[in-house]
């Protein structure tokens, strides 16, 4: 396809985006969502920073957890409930109006036409980031701290989240007869992934591995300052597959039988490639407080553990001790040990009425030796692993802790910016574009 034809298609999609009421509503509401999240987060951060709170609390306060993640959490909501409708509209309007019949005959492949839609949707998602960027700038203006690698990592997570939403929306619109049906498909998918998250908690095995790639779980690793390459690969692959699926179903000149067969092939190929991508173990801990890693001396010591380690956990999914163990130990162990097998042995969901003899125990097996421990404290667990493997426990006394960045600031001007200025900018821009370009939102 000639590049100028692609540019013309890109311009067409851009104009269609500007004519879309869903896009302007996304911009309008995302300002309120980000504003509310930011103002609440800064206020809570100030309280925890000593503004009337316990004196010890400010130690270890991280702006990533305290401000950035909750503020940008608004985009998770937007990617779930608002952005898919922008994507759906880009396809459904052409199907319903008959424009698709013209579009399919225009120069270029269907792939290039979907690529144009994808690029414009990506642009829409980045424009919707403006309130979030303003929030980060405001935080800096209050004297707040951010750590660039973990901030960029968080933004990458939200970029991928948006890409996935765009892909799902476009695919749903291609599959469904109308926009309403497409919206139902998209929401059903989202609810399905929530259910998978719930079911997989504390289960281990394939279900847990699958659940770690749901949109919510995938974003969570970025929110924790962890860049898992497998997550990046899987989300990009699934998003691309969704666009390909859209291409299959928008090709209305093909029989339903052909499209079903092509879909089956796509699902098999995607599953295979995703499986390979999911097995990429490389990851980078980009958090400033290294929350996803053991201390440097422990990581060096763990490199001496060469035999497979099996951990059997007798804790139910809703037991807070399991959450502690997952967050503080297992997550780091999975990154540090190549040969780690985790089994969740508790049979009940809450553990409240569990009558199992071993409930609460964690069994470590390595090289034919076993140790049973109940503690979920990082140092205790590591020492047990060192004992089993015959590795000398390192001296941790020289390790420096994360200082924390307490800040008792008030969210000055934030309410005016997010609740007044941003909505006005959005509404005036929409009105001006509507008036000058002769377009009207639908």
């Amino acid at each position, binding site marked *: 396809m000639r590049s100028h*034809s692609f540019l*013309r298609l890109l*311009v*067409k999609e851009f*104009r*269609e985006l500007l*004519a879309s009421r869903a896009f302007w509503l996304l911009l309008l509401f995302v300002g309120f969502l980000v504003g509310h999240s930011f103002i609440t987060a800064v206020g809570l951060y100030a309280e925890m920073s000593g503004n009337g709170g316990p004196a010890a609390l400010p130690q270890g306060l991280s702006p990533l957890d305290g401000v950035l993640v909750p503020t940008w959490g608004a985009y998770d909501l937007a990617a779930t409930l608002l952005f898919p409708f922008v994507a759906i509209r880009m396809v459904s*309007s*052409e199907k319903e*109006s*008959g*424009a698709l*019949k*013209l579009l*399919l*005959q*225009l*120069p270029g492949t269907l792939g290039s036409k979907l690529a144009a839609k994808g690029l414009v949707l990506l642009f829409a998602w980045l424009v919707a980031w403006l309130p979030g960027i303003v929030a980060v700038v405001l935080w800096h203006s209050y004297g707040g701290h951010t750590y660039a690698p973990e901030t960029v990592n968080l933004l990458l997570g939200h970029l991928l989240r948006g890409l996935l939403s765009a892909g799902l929306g476009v695919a749903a619109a291609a599959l469904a007869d109308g926009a309403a049906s497409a919206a139902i498909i998209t929401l059903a998918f989202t609810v399905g992934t929530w259910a998978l998250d719930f079911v997989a908690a504390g289960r281990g095995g394939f279900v847990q591995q699958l659940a770690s790639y749901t949109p919510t779980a995938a974003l969570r690793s970025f929110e924790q300052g962890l860049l898992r390459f497998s997550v990046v690969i899987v989300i990009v692959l699934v998003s691309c597959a969704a666009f390909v699926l859209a291409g299959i179903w928008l090709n*209305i*000149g*093909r*029989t339903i039988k*052909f499209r079903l067969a092509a879909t089956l092939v796509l699902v098999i190929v995607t599953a295979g490639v995703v499986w390979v991508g999911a097995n990429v173990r490389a990851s980078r801990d980009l958090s400033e407080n290294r929350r996803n890693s053991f201390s440097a001396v422990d990581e060096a010591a763990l490199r001496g553990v060469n035999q497979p380690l099996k951990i059997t956990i007798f804790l139910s999914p809703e037991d807070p001790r399991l959450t502690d163990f997952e967050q503080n130990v297992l997550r780091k162990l999975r990154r540090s040990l190549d040969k780690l097998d985790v089994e969740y042995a508790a049979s009940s969901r809450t553990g409240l009425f569990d009558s199992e003899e071993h409930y609460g125990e964690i069994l470590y097996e390595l090289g034919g030796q076993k140790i049973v421990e109940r503690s979920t404290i990082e140092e205790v667990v590591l020492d047990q692993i060192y004992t089993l493997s015959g590795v000398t426990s390192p001296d941790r006394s020289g390790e420096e802790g994360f200082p924390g960045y307490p800040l008792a600031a008030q969210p000055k001007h934030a309410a005016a910016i997010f609740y007044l200025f941003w909505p006005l900018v959005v509404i005036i821009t929409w009105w001006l574009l509507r008036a000058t*370009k*002769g*377009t*009207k*939102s*639908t």
Partner: protein
Amino acid sequence: MLTVEGLTKKFGSRSVLADVSFTVGAGEVLGLIGPNGAGKTTVLECLAGLLPTNSGTFKYHGNPLSARGRKETLFYVPDGILPWAQQTVKWLLTFFERLYSQAPEKLAALAGPLRLEEIARSRVATLSKGERKRVLLAVGLLTSQPLLLLDEPFDGLDLRQTRDVMTLLRSETTTGRTLFVSIHQLNDAAKVCDRLVLLNAGKRVAEGTLAELQAQANLKDGGLEEIFLALT
């Protein structure tokens, strides 16, 4: 130029086209006529690759028409669509003009007969049926494929507009372009078409010039309406 052989199309168990065959000659205006539900639009959409066929072959200058070849050979303008409804007419036409690298004079030449100036700043969504039809005709005439398929090009047009569009379509063939138009108004078809394909209940009933059809129907001086009634 284009040969269609054995075109068959079913929607489920319902047969819409049954073994339809005809040829389109270079530089002619070929009319596809028949009553509502005869399968005219289905023929055009199958030809354009927008509907899968159950069987049938399309040959362009004797060679099978591939998907890519189809895109380079023909362009189909559907009836009753509302493309990119929130954009202005001017933008829509300029989009097609530039996409197909047409000289600005081409659009200017269409503006008069299709009375595009008066609706240029209007949004497509606000156009009347006739205005929409004129815009869609302009869209089709701005493309560059040698074969243009038009579904009901006169539907929604008044008498004067119909006459102007007929003149415009005839002049289009002088540039070497071939037109294949579906028309349910037989009087209009007789005025603008060089040859005709009669379709009834998904079957090709007859094909030829008006004189040839008169001969087939044994109606010397008979109009198209009489011929159609005699043959179906």
